[in-house]
C-alpha cells in the first residue's frame, strides 16, 4: 500500500468510525465471554456446592446443568450477535471505504 493511500484512509471519517465501533463492540463481547466463563470457573473453584443445588426441592437435576448448557449457548449466541452486525453494518462501511480508496 502506498503511503499516500495510507494517509487518505487513516483520515477517512468512515474508517475512523469503523475501527472505533468495531473495536468497542469486539472488546465488549470478549469481556462478556470472559466474565461468563471465568465466573463459571471461579464458582467451581471456590464454591462448587452452588452448582450442586437441586433445581427444585426433590429434583435430581441441579442448578449446574442449565448453567453449564447456558455457558455453551452463550458462546454460540455471542458469536451470532457479532457476525450479524459485522456482516451488515461493518461490511457496508468497509465497502464504502474501499470504494473511496479505489475511486480517487
Amino acid at each position, binding site marked *: *500500500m502506498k*503511503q499516500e493511500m*495510507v494517509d487518505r*484512509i*487513516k483520515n477517512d471519517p468512515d*474508517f475512523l468510525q*469503523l*475501527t472505533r465501533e*468495531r473495536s468497542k463492540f*469486539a*472488546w465488549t*463481547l*470478549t469481556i462478556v*465471554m*470472559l466474565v*461468563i*466463563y*471465568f465466573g*463459571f*470457573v*471461579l464458582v*467451581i*473453584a*471456590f464454591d*462448587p*456446592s452452588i*452448582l*450442586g443445588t437441586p433445581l427444585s426441592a426433590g*429434583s*435430581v*437435576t*441441579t442448578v*449446574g*446443568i442449565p448453567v*453449564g*448448557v447456558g*455457558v*455453551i*449457548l452463550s*458462546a*454460540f449466541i*455471542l*458469536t*451470532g450477535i*457479532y*457476525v450479524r452486525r*459485522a*456482516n451488515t453494518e461493518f*461490511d457496508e462501511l*468497509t465497502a464504502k*471505504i*474501499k470504494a473511496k*480508496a479505489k475511486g480517487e
Partner: protein
Amino acid sequence: MKTLLLVLLTSFAAFAGEALTGEVEKQALNMSAIIMFLIFVGATLGITYWAAKRTKTAKDFYTAGGGITGFQNGMAIAGDYMSAASFLGISALVYAKGYDGLIYSIGFLVGWPIILFMVAEQLRNLGKYTFADVASYRLRQTPIRTLAAFGSILTVVLYLIAQMVGAGKLIQLLFGLDYEIAVILVGVLMILYVTFGGMLATTWVQIIKAFLLLSGATFMAIAVMAHYDFNFETLFATAVQMKETTSIMAPGGLVSDPVSAISLGIALMFGTAGLPHILMRFFTVSDAKEARKSVFYATGFIGYFYILTFIIGFGAIVMVFQNPQYLDLAKQAVDGGSPILGGDNMAAIHLSHAVGGDFFLGFISAVAFATILAVVSGLTLAGASAISHDLYASVIRKGKADGMMEMKVSKVSTVILGIVAIYLGIAFEDQNIAFMVGLAFAIAASANFPILFLSMYWSKLTTRGALLGGSLGLLTAAVLVVLGPTVWVDVLKNAEAIFPYKYPALFSVSAAFIGIWFFSITDKSDNAAKEKEAYEAQFIRSQTGIGAEGAVEH
C-alpha cells in the same frame, strides 16, 4: 482399570479432548466396522483423486484455492476439533465423573468466540497461507518466521504423537487390528490425502467425517432420550440411582484450586487461538465475511456436539454401566467395581451397541477411525506448510522460491512428517503421553498466540520483542510442564513436582506478554522504528481487507 482411571483423573482429563491413553486390550476382529471403514476410505480416496486434479498451484495446495464457503469451513473447523479422543474421551469423562465432563468440554468451546472477536477476520485480511505470514507481516522475516515455524512444528508434532498413539490403541479396541498396523495405516492414508489432495481433500474429508460424527452422536442422544420420554429429570434420576451417588450432578474435584482453574482456562482459550492447523483454515475462505461465518457455524457445531457427548455419557451410565453384557468379568474379579470391557473410553462405543445393535456399533467404530484420519491430515498439512512456506520459501529462499518448487517441498515435508508420525506413534506406544496435548496447547498459547495477537493490535511491537518474548513464553511453558506433576511425577517418577501446577499457561502466557512488551519498548534500533511506522498500513489492511489475498476461480 485403576491405572486407566488414574490417568483419566490426572492430566489426561483436562485434555481428554485430545489424548487417549491408558491400557487397552486388543478385541476380536470387527467385520461390520471394517467394511464401513473401507467404504469411508474408498469415498475419501475418490475425493482425493478429484481434489488432486484441482490442486495445481501452491495456493490450491495450502488453501484449497481460497474458495471454501463459511458453512463448509465451519464444519471443517468443527471436524478438526471433534477428534475421536474428544468424542470418546469426553463421553468417558461424563460416564466416570458426570458433571466434570461438562466443565471440560465448556473450556474447549469458549476460545471460539474470542477467536472470532479478536483474530479471525484480521487473520484472513493479512495472511496468505500460514499464521506466520501475519506475525511477520511488518517484522523481519527470518527470525520471526523461524520462531513461528518452530512453534507450529512443535505443536503439530506433539499433537500428532498423541493422535497416533490414540489411533493405535483405539483401533486395537475397535477393529481388533495390531497396534503397528493401525498406526501405519493411519500414516499412509494421511500421506495420500495430503500430498495428492492438499487442503481441498483435507477439508472435504474433515467435512464428511464431521457430518457422520454429528449424525451418529445425534442418533445416540435421541435414542437415549427416547428411553426416558425425553425427560432429563428421569434420565438423571436413573443415572444417580445406578451410580448410587448424587456427586455426578455437581462439580467434583477435577478443578480444585483457583490458580489451576484459571491457568487451564487460559491454556484452552488462547491455545485454541494459537493452533496452526486451526488458524490455517481461515485462509481457505474467500474473505473476512466468510471467515466470520466459519467461526459462527463452528461454534454452533462444537457446542451442539458437547451437549450430545454429555447426554451420551449419561446414557452410558444408565445403559452400559452395570449392564452384564459389557462387564469386564476378568477385571472385576481382580479390582472389583463394575469395569466395562476396554475401559471407560469405550463407554460411547458400548452405548452405540446398546441403542443400535451390531450394525450401529460398526458405524460408530468406523466414524471414530475416520475421525482420527481427518484430524491427523489437517495437522500434517499445517506442519508441512510451516516447513515449506515459512522455512523453505521465506527463510531459506528469502521469498524468491517459485510456487511449484514450494509445493514440491511441502509434499516432501508431508511424506517426511507422515513417516516421523508413524515412527513416533510406534515409539511412544507404551509411554505416558497424557502431557503432550497439554504441552501443545501451552506452547500454542504462550508462543504462537501472543506474537500473533500483538502483531495485530500493538503498534510498538518490534522483531526483538516478538523474538525474545515469544521464545521466553515457549521455554517457560516447556520447562514448567517438565517440572510440573504431569512429567516430573507421572513420567519421570519423582515423588513431588518442583512446579506444583499441572497447567503452566497462566505463568507462561504472562511471561510471553511481559517479555514481548519489555523487549519491544527498550528496542531503540532503526529497524524497530521502521517496524512501528509500518503498523499503520498493516492496520488498515487488517481492518478493511484492502490488498488481501483473494480467492481463485476454478
